Every structure is written in structure tokens, then in C-alpha cells.
């Protein structure tokens, strides 16, 4: 379950190596075990330079790397997980857990406690999930609250010290590096017994609990008889509990309005101590019936010090918040487009922002545009072949708005214009981005009275404003292209 080595690599296209190893750490005691366990199939951990090159090649992140190379592009070189075999100096190092996020490649090599030939299934290697946890932990640490390169560098500089505490010998002790950082700075003379390892020290001060619920909706609308539209709400409940005592107990109940759509696919934070089996089994992958559990959803837990996501859920609300219609018609050199949007009456008409992006892929720059909008304004990005319809804070009283226009495109130059493999010919989409304040689509809420706290003092309980960020995509196709349709039900 240990790691042999871990790397953070920034992907820097345009530089000679296309990347820089920002951090790396090797674990020689684990390496020694690997040598014994892997026997004749043992491949040593390469130095940073060769590793960087092999990884970037594998992940297809090298500049100008367009030729067919069998070791990567061969049809039998199928990768179905973020775990790779990297050819380094005529040998292959496996398993390398690696993924790219925000321009940083996170990579590690877990110890496999057996021979590597035949390749054991990943599920049998305990170090794989531990490796993922380490990399996710690093990612959370680097990007929580980080705004710019300087802050990233500060955090990268803290890593050697932090890993000395959270992963001294390659076996991960805590994936929450912020917690480790707090622990390094917190030295108590008399640590109480039974102090959870995920909580360094205890809170001292005025007790308070705050809970917020954020929902996002994702919808795909096709306006086609044979393809069903899709929409799904994803919610997250975030808590911050400032309570005294080593292990205060808290129970939060989430409730739904009458006839509200039940919460499904609930995933909880590890600090939740027990879970009703109805919560565990409520899932969107089973067919719905009326007997579905609809709350209240009780979550007893002992909170960590920091703010944390108590649970995630999804829900299938009866209608999408905005219904859309998109039409595109090619007339010689011109393209006629029509977009209609209708806000559902049950939805609060109070947006922080709302805008529709209308991209035109695989075409030249926009040279000419004639349009009419019933509401809002249209911004034109000629070079990017993009229209943005800024709808603003409110839909008009009719709740319905529309745009129509004729677009003419110039000659296509490959480098500049956006490429998309799906939006070919008559296939295209409009993407709607919006945020509604103080509103949840499911109507899910945690009222103050439902929060039970077993800790000294009477805490102040707040449920700050809720917000909802959403994306909604309207797809059309004239049949010449393939719409990324959902699978048959």
C-alpha cells in the first residue's frame, strides 16, 4: 500500500521539454521491497528527466508530437484508467498513476507486492487507491484557495516538509495535507487520548455551525423525438463547525418540500458515523417509484476542524429550469440561426448572471452578422467565431426570449479557428451559463431546528445564502453529424 515515488510536473507547452518537474519524492525503503516483491520483473524508478519525457509522451503532451507511434497509438494499447505503463530505457515501468489537472500532472508509482508478470489486476493492488488519494490530496492542497503562480510556488515549497509528515516512508498517513500543515504548526504538550488523527487539536471559542447547500444543474436538450433530453441536479452540503471538545457530535437533517424530488446517489464525508440504509440505497441507477425515500435525510457526524463537504447528492427534478430551442440553417455562404429560451415559471427569476454562448466550430472567422434579439445584448468575437448573448439578471415578464440572425464566415485558417470533432456540418450547440442566488432546484434545505449539537455551549447556527451555478447545453443536428446522445434507456 506504499508508494515508490511521487512527482508533480507542470505542463509547459512551447518550452523545450514541454514540462518541468516541480516536485519529486522517492521512497528507497519501499524501493527495496519492490525489488524483492517484483523479482525478475523489477524495474527501478527512473530519474526525473527520463520520467518526465516518457510521461509527457504517453499523455500526448509533447509539442509537435503528431506521428503514429505504435507504443502509444497502436490499437491494442488501450488505457481505460489513469494508470499507465511507461517505456523508459527499453523497460516498462508500471503501474504509473497519473493525471493532468489545471496544467499540473500528478503522478506516482505504487508498490506492487507481487511479481509484475503477468500483470495483476489494479483492483488487487492496495497501493493504487492509496496513490490516487495522495495525488488528490496534493491537488486539493495546491488548489484550495490558490489564486496565482506565486501562491502555487509557496505551496510547492511547503511540500517536502509536508510529505515528511503525511507520507514519511511512502505509506500515506493523511491525504488531507492542510490538516497535516496545521498539525505541524500545532504542538500540544498534552494531547488528549482518543484524539482523531484527522483533527489536530480542538476549537476554542464561540460555538457556531454553518451549513450551505449549493446545487448545479446540467442539462442536455436535443429537441428530437428519438433522443430523450437529460437534466440532473447535483448538490453539495458544506459545513463548518466551530465547536469545543475533542469529539463533539452533530446531526444535520436535510428536508425536502412536499412532493419534492428525492435526493439520490448520496455520498457522505468519512466523518459521518452512521447512515440510514434508505439513504444508502436511494440511487438514480434504479428505476424510480413512488415509494422512494424522500427524507428527512439525517447525517450524524463528528466534525473536523476545517470546512468540509458533508455530502453530495443528485436529484431528478421534473423539468429543467430553462427550456431551449436552437435551429441552424445553412444557406450558401450564410448561416441562419434561431435561439429561443424559456424560463420555467417555478424557477426564481433572479440571476446573478445568465449568458448563452453560441460557438461556430470548424469554420472561418465571422465576417458579417445581422441579428435581432428580443432581450439582452449580443457580443461578437469575430476571430473566435463565437457569439455571446448576455441575458442579464432577469428574464422579461413573458419568461421567453429569442435571438435570430444571419452569420457569414470568412476563409478557414486552421491554426486560429476553434476545432471541434463533434460540431461538424449541421451539428452544433448553444451553451447556457447562469447562476441563480438563494435558490435550490430541489428545494432541499437544512433548517436551524433540525440541527442537533452535543457539545458544550449553545451554538449559533447559520444557513448562509444558497446559490446555484448551472450549465445547460442545447444540441442540434441536421443528421450529417453525430450528436453525443445519451444511451438508450
Amino acid at each position: 500500500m506504499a508508494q515508490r515515488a511521487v512527482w508533480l510536473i507542470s505542463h509547459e507547452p512551447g518550452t523545450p521539454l514541454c514540462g518541468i518537474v516541480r516536485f519529486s519524492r522517492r521512497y528507497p525503503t519501499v524501493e527495496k521491497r519492490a525489488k524483492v516483491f517484483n523479482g525478475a520483473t523489477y524495474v527501478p524508478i527512473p530519474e526525473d528527466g527520463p520520467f518526465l519525457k516518457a510521461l509527457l509522451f504517453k499523455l500526448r503532451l509533447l509539442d509537435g508530437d503528431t506521428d503514429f507511434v505504435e507504443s502509444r497509438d497502436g490499437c491494442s494499447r488501450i488505457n481505460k484508467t489513469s494508470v499507465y505503463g511507461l517505456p523508459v530505457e527499453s523497460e516498462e515501468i508500471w503501474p504509473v498513476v497519473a493525471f493532468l489537472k489545471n496544467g499540473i500532472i500528478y503522478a506516482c508509482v505504487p508498490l506492487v507486492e507481487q511479481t509484475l508478470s503477468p500483470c495483476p489486476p489494479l483492483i488487487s493492488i492496495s497501493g493504487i487507491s492509496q496513490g490516487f488519494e495522495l495525488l488528490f490530496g496534493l491537488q486539493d492542497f495546491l488548489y484550495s484557495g490558490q489564486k496565482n503562480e506565486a501562491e502555487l510556488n509557496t505551496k510547492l515549497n511547503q511540500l517536502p516538509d509536508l510529505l515528511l509528515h503525511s507520507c514519511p516512508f511512502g505509506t500515506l498517513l493523511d491525504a488531507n495535507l492542510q490538516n497535516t500543515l496545521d498539525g505541524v504548526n500545532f504542538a500540544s504538550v498534552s494531547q488528549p487520548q482518543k484524539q482523531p488523527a484527522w483533527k489536530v487539536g480542538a476549537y476554542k471559542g464561540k460555538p457556531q455551525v454553518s451549513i450551505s447547500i449549493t446545487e448545479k444543474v446540467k442539462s442536455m436538450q436535443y429537441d428530437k423525438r428519438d433522443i430523450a433530453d437529460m437534466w440532473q441536479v447535483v448538490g453539495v452540503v458544506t459545513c463548518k463547525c466551530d465547536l469545543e471538545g475533542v469529539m463533539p457530535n452533530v446531526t444535520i437533517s436535510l428536508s425536502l418540500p412536499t412532493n419534492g424530488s428525492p435526493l439520490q446517489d448520496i455520498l457522505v464525508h468519512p466523518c459521518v458515523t452512521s447512515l440510514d440504509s434508505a439513504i444508502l440505497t436511494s440511487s438514480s441507477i434504479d428505476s424510480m417509484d413512488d415509494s422512494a425515500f424522500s427524507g428527512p435525510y439525517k447525517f450524524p457526524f463528528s466534525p473536523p476542524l476545517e470546512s468540509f463537504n458533508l455530502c453530495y447528492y443528485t436529484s431528478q427534478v421534473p423539468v429543467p429550469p430553462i427550456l431551449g430551442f436552437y435551429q441552424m440553417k445553412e444557406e450558401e455562404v450564410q448561416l441562419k440561426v434561431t435561439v429561443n429560451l424559456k424560463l420555467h415559471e417555478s424557477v426564481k427569476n433572479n440571476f446573478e448572471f445568465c449568458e448563452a454562448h453560441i460557438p461556430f466550430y470548424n469554420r472561418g472567422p465571422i465576417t458579417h452578422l445581422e441579428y435581432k434579439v428580443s432581450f439582452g445584448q449580443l457580443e461578437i468575437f469575430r476571430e473566435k467565431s463565437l457569439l455571446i448573448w448576455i441575458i442579464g439578471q432577469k428574464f422579461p415578464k413573458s419568461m421567453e426570449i429569442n435571438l435570430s440572425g444571419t452569420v457569414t464566415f470568412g476563409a478557414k485558417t486552421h491554426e486560429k479557428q476553434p476545432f471541434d470533432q463533434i460540431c461538424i456540418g449541421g451539428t452544433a450547440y448553444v451553451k447556457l451559463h447562469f447562476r441563480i442566488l438563494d435558490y435550490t432546484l430541489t428545494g432541499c434545505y437544512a433548517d436551524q431546528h433540525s440541527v442537533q449539537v452535543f457539545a458544550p455551549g449553545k451554538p449559533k447556527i447559520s444557513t448562509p445564502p444558497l446559490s446555484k451555478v448551472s450549465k445547460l447545453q442545447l444540441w442540434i443536428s441536421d443528421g450529417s453529424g453525430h450528436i453525443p446522445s445519451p444511451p438508450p434507456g
Partner: protein
Amino acid sequence: MGPLSRETWAQRLGAFRASPSAFMAGPEGEGLGSDLLSDLRSEKLSEHTKVSLLTLTLEFPAQLWPDAPAAEAAASSLLDTLVLLPPRPSALRRPLLLAATTALAAGGALGPTSGASGRLLPLLLGLASGRDLGRGFGPASEQHLLQATACECLRELESCKPGLLGGCLGLLRGLLRHEGPVQPLSLLLALVLRNTLEVQARAGASLQGLLVASNSPTGDGHSPWDWTLAGEGDAHLQAQAPSWPAAEEGGRGLAALEPSPEETRELRAVVAQLLDASYLLTPVAQAQLLWLLGWALRGRRGQPPALFKPQLVRLLGTAQLALLHAVLALKAAFGEAMFTTQDEALLLRRLALAAQHPALPPPAHLFYLHCLLSFPENWPLGPTGEEAAPLLLGPQQCRGLLPSLLHDPLSLLARLHLLCLLSAENEEEEEGQVQSPRRYLEELLGGLRQMSALEGGPRALATLCFQASYLVVRCLAGHPTVLTPLTHGLAQLYQARPALAPHFVDFLDRVGPELGKPLKGMLREQVVSREGGDGALRWHLQMLATVVDRDAQSATLRFLRAAAAHCTDWSLEQALLRVCRALLWAGGGDGLVDFLQELAGQLEDPDGRDHARLYYILLAHLAGPKLGVALGPSLAAPALTSSLVAENQDFATALTVQAALPPLRLSVGPRGAEGPGPVLQLQLEAQEPLYSLELRFRVEGQLYAPLGAVHVPYLCPGRPRLLRLPLQPRRPAPTRLDVRALYTTPAGLTCHAQLPPLPVDFANLFLPFPRPPGGTGPGFFEELWASCLPQGAESRVWCPLGPQGLEALVSRHLEPFVVAAQPPASYSVAIRLPPASRLLLRLEAAQADGVPVALRTDDWAVLPLAGDYLRGLSAAV
């Protein structure tokens, strides 16, 4: 050298990290390890710098101290530094403990004879048990941190030497119950417990009350660590594998061990103690604990896995990758004993949910999807080790897991695999359904092909399309309803974008004939129906080299003729020639000979012309099988990137002569028919069929004129052949012939073998005198006899006779040369010795054991040879 400054160290460490091997090979490398150890005690360096030095030793001990004595010395030095620290708070104690542990464990110095090990272990145990170790160990504020650190170090030592701390089980239990940090102690206890159980089980011993012993680390005569349990070398490490419990048969006889009731109870109590406190551990540490306890209890009698059950609901509710993975490990370890069918269904649904939950990151989705397809089922139907859709996971549950074009390549392939497995299973059920998974699969593949057909589209898209197609072919090879549209679709894709030829070639190499054959046919038709001169000629030629065969040769040649006019550069010419080569290999054809001859004259590049000529010659001179071998892929060089080099190597193998052991025997046979000169009759016997055999002879010295080679088209074992080898001696003397054989094996390889030297005896040169017109007779002999002198020489030799007597001797050896005789009493023998000598023998008045021979020759040099010959005759009988 005095201590280095902070900046110098920073530079040095930077240079080292950039490439440790290069740095250590350089001038600065040698002293790095010792400088580092000494500067750790320098008062000029800040603690921060020293920590960075220690971090380096944690990562690269093998480079700094490459052997066990050096590692031992380094560990001792690190421990000295630790002891010498002033009793104020310091950030160095923890890294020093880690560094000493690393140096010993990684450097192979850990052992009963190591002094540093003997110092480190009691120190760690003392720290772990929270005892006051005196003023050297800093302020109380550091005690908790050091206690945890000591546990970590002990855990690492135990990992590297399983069983080492078996004697501490009781102590650790006590510590966990009363004091001490929960997580480090729990993990250490669980690891020691697991290892001790394994080691004891292998030794056939019981826990021997280790669980209840409360030995103290002060050492009451015996130390709590046990090198005998830890075993020699790394023996125990090897035995732990494999790590996946289900992969192992019968738990290696652990079950056979009958524990005492007391031991069973104690063991259960320890496990319960660990599990009860597991909530206090971080999620990743909880997962480690579950893996360890699962390993420890698997197959052990009297240990119901129900102990784990109270934890499961809590664990199943989380989205934590490590925790769900640990639950799966328990599932694999205990199967039905812990998970009923309903439990299994629930676990599968949680996995299916986690594999698509929008709140989780894509790498986690992919791992969960892998877990679904490798799920340790209670009653698996298929063979173990192969990915399959679990029985309890119906199409309904997989609805959200199906692929879409919007997915990234990894997700698309993972989900496509699931779709293929479901399609393969549900063939019967879905007949007649309009929106069947099969149809969806077809549309998806169509979409992928359309995406990769885009001109200028990225390579990744094409790769994805072909990988997806390959996955489908692999899973659904027996389903023509899937393969037929796939074949047509791919053929259309080539039509749209010939630049994908490398993908097609690779794809055709991998797939079986059920798809490969029809696809090849379609692609060939597509290529040859084109004009030769379009911009994609390079790709067409590459494609054609893969798909040509005996069929439609005339159309292929028509295309090639048209293409040849456009092959204006070297690489295109080579591509064209590769197609010719493939055609040759497929069996040639009449038109090809002409075409190659045309190319040999027409191509611009001399290399191309040479190649064409070579192919022409090969086609004209080699029969089918040999041609196939000459051009076929070589086993010697299976994977070379350059086809040119590969081709060169193939030829080299097929056409270059290989040295071999002689597979044939050559001997001098009986004297045969007469000729104008001496002829050696050779008998040739082969041990294996040989083709185109050529025997080359070389005479030692200048005694004979050079000999011509002998050719044998085919030599079959068991059927010896007689050969005539005409000799042209320059002097009448015996010699030895050096013989080499050149032949082709049935495998088509041309070989060369050196045969044992072949003796040419004096008698092999004997020729009879041509018959004079008046016939031979005493007169003729007397004439010859008289003519030898005076230039010649005369001698008398005693020729011993065997039991057969003179008559038999003459008839056996001299019969052809007898010119006058009065058998059995006297014989006159006249022998011609090429090039121009004669030897005359007169044998008469034979006695019981020999015959006196009078001999005359016109060449005195022949006399000793003749004497030896005669004296040796009886022995030769």
C-alpha cells in the same frame, strides 16, 4: 574542508537532484555523503538547511552510501548527531530518526550484527512507549510527535523485516489501550499482527501467548525484537505476495493451523479493539488497517469476518476511493462469509454509482469502473482474472455508464468495454429492439469514425477510433452483426482519410481473420480502383503493402504501373517497392516479373533500381517457398522501427550464408569407371534434406591443380549419392582435401559447413596404361620395364601377405593394372601415375607370409611412396 554555506549546499543539492547518477559520477559526488553527515553537526547551518540535507538522505541513501557497511556507518553517525542535539526544541529529531531508519533499512544493514540497529531499535521502542528517555530527547512538547514518529519508523522496519517486532504485540496492545497516539499505534499493531500470524503459521507455531505478554522495552534479559522470526534476508517478503487475497489458493494452509481457544479469543479481542478505534484514523489509514486485518484473518479458524460488518455501512456511504477499495479487498478475502447476495448487490450498486457520480473526479470514475469489471463476485461465472460484467449488474444499472462521444478517451474506452460485455451477454434478449445496445454501439463507432475522418484532426482522435474498434472486435469477434457494419465503416473511413493508413496497418496486424480478411479485401479494392497519382499515394502504397494478396493481381499491377510514374522521390519509390515485395511474398505472378524489370530500368534512384532488380532476380530464380522465406519476416529481428533496416535484416538472414555444423558425411568410395585422369569416387550421405548443395574442395599445397566444385541439387537422407571428383595432380603424391559444403536448408537458410578433410591416397592416383594396338602382354610389360632405366630407379620390396594369399591381394588392389600374369604365381603390373610417371611391379615367387616385389619407376620420388603402399597392402585387406 570546513562546513559549506547554505547557498553552496542549495546549489549542490540542486545539481544532485537534477541527475543523481551524473552528479555522483562527477568530481563532487565522492564526498557528498560524508560532507553531509559532518555538516549536520555544524553550528553554522540553519535547521532548515539541515532538514533539507536530511530529506536528501531520505530519498537517495543508495547513492550516498552504496553498500551495507557505509549505510551502517551513516546510520551510526545520524544516531550520534541525534544524541548530541541540545535539549531544546528542534526540528531535527524527527527527520534524524527517519533518516537513520531509512539508511539501515534501504542500505541492507538492518540485522542482528549491526551496531546501529542495536542502538536504533531500543531507542524507537522507548520513544513509542512514551517513556522518558532523558534530557537528550528534548522538551516534553516534542514527545507526542516523536512517539508517533517512532511508531512510523518501527512500522517501516517491520515492513522490511516481517516478524521483527512479533515479540512486541502485547506491549503495543497495552499502549493502544492506555496511552499513545491512536493512528500510529493502530497501524503498527495491525502490521505486526499480520506479519506475526503469517510467520508463525509458516513455522507451524502458535502465537505463543505473544498477544498477552506485556514485555517492557527496558529489556528484562531478552529484547522484544526477534531476528529469528524476521528470518534471513528477504525471505518473508517474498512469501507475502500476492497481495490480492482471492488470487491465492486456500490461504497457504493458514486454516490448517488449529489455534487454542484462548488464542482465538485474544486475537478476536485485538481485532475488535483495532476496528472500534478505526473511526479515529484518517480515511487512508482506515483503509490500510482494513487491508491488513483482512489479510491477517483470511482463512483463519474461529475468526468470523462479521467483526468487520459494523464498519461497512459507514464505509459504503463515503466516496473515499481508498475506503471503497478496502471494502472490495474484504469482499475478495471473505466472499460469502461476509457478504450475502443482497450485500453484493448493494456493493455493486454503490460502485456503479460512484463510477459516474458527478461529484467525483474522472480518475476515480475510471478506477471504480475497473473495479466493477474485476469485481470479486461470490459466484463468478467466467474464468477468474478476466474482466467481465458482474452477474448482479444488469443493463438497467449500467444505463448511466454507457459511453458517449463527449467523454474523454479513457472514459470512452472504459465505458465502451462495459457496453461490449453487456452486448455480448444480452444477444438473445434484444432481438427486435429498436434502441438496442448493439445499435447504440454501432452509432457510437460511426461517430468516432466521423470524428477521425476530419481532415487535420488530431492524432488522438484516430487512435481513439481504432482502439475502440479493436476493443469491440476483441469482445464481439463472434458476432457478425457487429463486425459487418464495422468493416464497411472502416473501409469508408479509409476512403475519407487515407492518411490514417498507419492505423489501418496496425489494426489489421492485431485483429483476427473474421474481420481482417474482409477488411483487407475492401481496402485493396478501394486503393487499386484509384488513379495512381493522387496526393495520398504514400498512404495508398503503405496500405497496399499490407493488404495485397494473390487476388486481383492485375488490378493491383495496373495501379502500381500508374503509381510508378508519380514515384518521384526515394521514399515513394521505396513504398512502391515494398508493395512489390509484398506481392512477391504473396506468390508473384506473371505480370510482376515484367513490372519489376520495368522498374529496374525506370526508377530514378539507384537504390530503388537495385531493389527492383534484386526482386526481379529473386522472383526469376527462386521457387515459391524459398522466395517466401527470403522475403518473410525474420524471427531474428522482430521489432525494428525502420522497415528498411528490417528488410535488410530479413535479407541478411535469408540470403547471407550461415555457418553450421555439417549435416552430411563425405567418404571416398570404391574405385569406379575409368577416365582419362584420376577420379575420386565420393560417397555422400545427408542427415537432413539439403537443397542446392555445393561442395568446394581445396588441395593443401601446390601438388594438384585447383579442383572444381561439385553441385548436387537435392540430397535426401537415407539415399547416399556417389560423386566423381576428377583430380589433376601436378606431382604423383597423396594429399588431403579441405572440403566445405554450401547448401540450403528446408527452412530456406543458406548454410556453410566445414567437413572433415578428405585423404587422397597414393592408390587413388593409379591409372592403367592405355591398351596398345597389339594388346598387352609380357612383351608390352618388358618394354616398359626396360624403358625406366637409366633415368629412373629400381627397388625391391617385401610385401607381406595375409592369409588370403597373393591372388586375392592382386585381385583386390591391382587387378586393373595387371598387364601380364601367370596366376597364381606371377603378376606384372604397370601403373600410370599422372601427370607423367609410371610404376612397374613384378610380383612372383610368393612365399607363405609375403611376396618379394621388384619395382621400377621413371620417377625416383615415387619409390618411397610405392614402398609404403606395398608394405601397407596386407593391412588394408
